[in-house]
């Protein structure tokens, strides 16, 4: 252990510009394959809940080119992920969300430059995120779709939350997400979140269905990270561009998110 410690500090002192590249907090990536399952809302609200539990949290909008975390919570951002390509630090590019205790690294860029990143640039961005050692948790919202970028982002996560709803189409895409993640990172930590569930019981049934398919076809048994019950106030909070936990802290969905955060940061 000490040999490793010594070697890594020695490397640290010899390399530029990555002396701060100690692994940061846990990278929690959120993916679904399908759009419209409430992934971005979940990423925002989970970041908020993790921050309320006392951790320092960076929410990274990895829906490159179509990013909208900042819009959902009415946050004016001056910088975005493209700054990482210029060697700036994630800490310097992040914008604090007032009264919510977490920061956002936006994925929207005025120039649209983030929409057409080549794989090499994705790696540069990942290296920049790995160097963001100030945070206990880095929550990465991965865009819809299962393209190379989404798969690469998902593959570096310490924990991958695969989001589905009770719809068969969402279930099919969540399954595809799990399948690709298992190919890209065998043995990784992957868990299922059922969002917009009718009840806790129907949400669990959806997870069991997905798990049964994964067990039979993929020999995987993804555990349930949490069920988030449907709440009409979610879209109301989004319309008003206010973080959900700020507006409806006592709602059932807030309690569900709180339990999810507790399972990720005991």
């Amino acid at each position, binding site marked *: *252990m*000490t040999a490793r*410690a*010594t070697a*890594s*500090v*020695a490397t*640290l*002192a*010899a*390399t*530029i*510009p990555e*002396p*701060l590249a*100690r692994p940061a907090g846990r990278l929690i990536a959120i993916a679904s394959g399908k759009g419209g399952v409430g992934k971005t809302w979940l990423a925002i609200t989970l970041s908020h809940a993790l921050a309320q539990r006392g951790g320092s949290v960076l929410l990274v909008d990895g829906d490159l080119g179509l990013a909208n975390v900042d819009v959902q919570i009415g946050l004016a951002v001056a910088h975005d992920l493209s700054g*990482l*390509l*210029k*060697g700036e*630090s994630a*800490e*310097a590019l992040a914008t604090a969300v007032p009264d919510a205790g977490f920061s956002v690294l936006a994925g929207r860029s005025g120039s649209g430059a983030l929409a057409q990143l*080549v*794989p*090499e*640039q994705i*790696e*540069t961005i*990942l*290296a920049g995120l790995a160097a963001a*050692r*100030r945070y206990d948790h880095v929550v990465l919202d991965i865009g819809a779709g299962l393209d*190379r970028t989404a*798969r*690469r982002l998902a*593959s570096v996560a310490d924990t991958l939350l695969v989001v589905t709803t009770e719809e*068969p189409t969402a*279930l*099919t895409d969540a*399954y*595809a997400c799990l*399948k*690709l993640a298992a*190919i*890209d990172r065998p043995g990784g930590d992957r868990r299922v979140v059922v969002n917009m569930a009718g009840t806790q019981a129907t949400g669990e*049934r959806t997870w*069991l*269905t997905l798990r*049964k*398919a994964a067990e*039979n*076809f993929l020999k995987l048994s993804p555990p349930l990270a949490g069920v988030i019950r449907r709440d009409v106030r979610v879209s109301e909070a989004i319309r008003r561009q206010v973080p959900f936990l700020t507006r409806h802290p006592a709602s059932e969905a807030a309690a569900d998110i709180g339990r999810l955060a507790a399972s990720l940061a005991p």
Partner: protein
Amino acid sequence: MRIRTFRARTVAAAMSAARAELGPDALMLGTRRVADGVELTAATEPEEEIAPVVPVAPAPVAAPPRDHAVEQALAAHGLPEGLRAALATGPNLAARLAEALRFEDLPLGPSGALLVVGPPGAGKTLTVAKLATRLRLAGQTPRVIAADGRRAGAVEQLAAFTRLLGIDLIAAPHPATVLRALAQGRGEAPALIDTAGLDPFDAADREEIAALAAASGAAIALVLPAGMDAMEAAESAEAMAEAGARHLLATRLDLARRIGAVPAAAIGGALAIAEGGTGPGAADGLAPLTAEALAARLLTPPSARPARASAA
């Protein structure tokens, strides 16, 4: 995976409809009752070869800017090249320190417990005495536990302070007695635990501290003298971070001329900088160390170190 739902009057009828359409290998995912029978969800998985995503080499980024005046100042404090480059990115060192390092208060709420650890002679006992004094002056009655059972006179030294403060010193020479002492009065006042000097590079020493922290729920703060060698400090901090240390207490800031060990330890162990020892006084010899104060000291040449404050 292809998912289809089938409705029929009976499960058997739905299953045969599923097999007819999806083939004999169709997987029955589940059924539920609907108005006129059952709804069956079934799936098939086509055979396909999918290659894993292979990472490529990252695109180069422009080298970060360097401020040579700041870099020279950091070199004078004994910071090695890599750490200098990380911190001397611009003229505003305080802003860079605030961005690259963490500055946090110690977790000393009513139910807080702090294991104060470090190599022999780092200043653990005096630091515990100073923290206890500060809490006492704030109207609290911290529980002070001497877990330093090995060194002759260690308990007596701390006892001299606690007597002055009107606090009972709890001598706990074994981990089990530390746990018992912590369990009593938990939630009423923070607990400060003075520990025996350890070797950060000794796995058994680290494990002992990690086990005590895990069993007691106490946070670990590492005490290092500000004047030690910067690389030695970085490696010590990294080793102790593996044992669970999260905060850094830098002692003897008033005596050291070169304090590169402070940022080096914070970076090496990803430790939050909490306090700095600024003088011998129990009441005023320890103060929260801010990015501004640390930057000001690092930008002061070693030969121009501020004069030592006199004992209170």
